[in-house]
């Protein structure tokens, strides 16, 4: 962590104590906008008032300059040409443009029936887009079943590719599990098979290295609010010669792929955030790795029946997705009220559906409800995690004391063999 964010981190920590705010451990849902980023956005609001689409005066030119230099900065971070990047409203839109746009383009070019592939643990922005396309007669979809450790089996993917497969869409870092997919290997397979490859990298920026010259990818989605930038802006990398049809129509901004006034200030903020995130990426990785190990060691050595979901190596250290067998996730969060986290339990969703991701990788139904997703970020301190581990251990013990399942387990009952009386 550099000095700036060290300072900000202290400030955030102080503020949290002062106002009895929770320690934020939900850095995959969103990240706080860095004060430095908020500042450049604010300054740009006051200084740069034009529409980049206005080509007849200096306000428009200034706005264009702001947008283009932002594009360059982001291009540098991920090592692509800036003209291969378009700005969007977020990763949801980027995924939609990629998937709908490739399908549309191929069908407009005369293909009768196209086949597209994704996995069963993707973000809803991918899965729901696939589900929607499923309804079209001329689109066929395959959802690769991800392995128990949260990683794709390359052979399964390879076997799923057909004559008319036009697109494979895979998320780089899974937002729930933190697992990292072998993007380079998939890219090579796509290249050999002549299939377009879309990567949802929303959870990747600032966490793992992204070098677009070292991997073969046609489209890659980004979202600024996942790396301490503003909400409401994302980007889409479109490799040269990859044709996508737009899904929204209007003033033909962003090469005609994404109509709508380009939000200058958000571009500036996104660029600043990308730059800073990349600067701290490696040191943060090491810091996170250390915090993760300490935290897991502490918890695992004090408590039985704790399971880490997702591969323990092929993952970002920022994420610990844990199942605390025999006690329910929402209850854990309610007891751990000084920490802001999320859970895959049904009770912590608005729809009362448990996480489809844990289910997809075959986590035992009962364990899904006991899971917590703890995601650390640049403002997470060692002290935070020491406290968290201690509080978590106490909480788990307390709740297990109240849990009939724990009692049964302790008395030797095999829970798998119990006949449950359930009305669901």
């Amino acid at each position, binding site marked *: 962590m550099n000095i700036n964010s060290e300072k900000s981190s202290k400030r955030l920590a102080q503020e949290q104590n002062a106002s009895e705010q929770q320690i934020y451990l939900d850095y995959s849902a969103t990240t706080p906008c860095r004060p430095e980023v908020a500042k450049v956005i604010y300054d740009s609001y006051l200084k740069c008032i034009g529409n980049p689409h206005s080509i007849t005066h200096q306000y428009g030119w200034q706005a264009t300059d702001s947008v283009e230099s932002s594009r360059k900065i982001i291009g540098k971070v991920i090592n692509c040409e800036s003209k291969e990047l378009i700005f969007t409203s977020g990763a949801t839109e980027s995924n939609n443009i990629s998937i709908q746009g490739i399908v549309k383009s191929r069908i407009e070019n005369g293909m009768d029936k196209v086949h597209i592939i994704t996995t069963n643990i993707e973000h809803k922005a991918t899965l729901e887009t696939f589900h929607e396309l499923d309804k079209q007669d001329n689109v066929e979809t395959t959802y690769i079943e991800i392995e128990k450790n949260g990683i794709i089996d390359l052979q399964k993917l390879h076997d799923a590719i057909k004559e008319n497969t036009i697109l494979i869409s895979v998320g780089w870092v899974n937002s729930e599990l933190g697992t990292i997919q072998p993007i380079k290997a998939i890219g090579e397979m796509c290249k050999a098979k002549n299939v377009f490859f879309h990567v949802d990298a929303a959870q990747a920026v600032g966490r793992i290295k992204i070098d677009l010259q070292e991997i073969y990818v046609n489209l890659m989605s980004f979202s600024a609010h996942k790396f301490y930038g503003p909400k409401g802006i994302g980007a889409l990398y479109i490799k040269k010669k990859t044709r996508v049809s737009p899904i929204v129509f209007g003033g033909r901004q962003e090469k005609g792929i994404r109509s709508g006034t380009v939000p200058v200030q958000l571009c500036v903020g996104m660029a600043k955030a990308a730059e800073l995130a990349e600067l701290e990426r490696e040191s943060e990785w090491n810091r996170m790795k250390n915090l993760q190990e300490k935290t897991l060691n502490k918890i695992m050595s004090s408590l039985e029946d704790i399971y880490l979901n997702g591969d323990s190596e092929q993952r970002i250290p920022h994420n610990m997705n844990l199942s605390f067998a025999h006690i329910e996730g929402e209850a854990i969060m*309610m007891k751990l009220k000084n920490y802001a986290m999320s859970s895959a*339990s049904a*009770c912590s969703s608005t729809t009362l559906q448990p996480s489809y991701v844990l289910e997809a990788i075959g986590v035992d139904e009962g364990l899904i409800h006991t899971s917590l997703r703890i995601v650390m970020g640049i403002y997470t301190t060692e002290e935070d995690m020491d406290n968290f581990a201690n509080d978590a251990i106490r909480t788990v013990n307390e709740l297990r004391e109240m849990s009939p399942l724990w009692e049964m387990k302790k008395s030797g009952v095999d829970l798998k063999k119990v006949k449950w009386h359930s009305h669901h």
Partner: protein
Amino acid sequence: MNRYNEKINEAFRNPKNVGSMDETDDNVGVGFVGSPGCGDVLKIYIKVDDSDRIADVKFKTFGCGSAIASSSVLTEKVMGLTLEEAKKITNKDIADELSLPAIKTHCSVLAEEAITDAIENLISKRLIKKGKE
């Protein structure tokens, strides 16, 4: 997880009557409902005195904050009631007491089922005992 009201938070944080009882005791009935796969398991123990009044009640619950709060409220409500009176407790009584959000109604339903199950368990125990005698 919802933004719970203070009643639920309080009942969750300081639950009453957590614990278990000797299931082999003839005067103890056990209610056991729910499943881990659905995210809630409730176990409720009632012990009756000679006049069939609930003299003691305990629960253990695997479940969310509302499930634990509902369990606690249930035990408070039935304590001291006769079995007949206890049978009349409905999920609505519990939901109202806690002002449960609509999406959490199933927690109170489960609590009602648990007490019903416990009473039935006690009665069937007695029938079996009578049969044996």
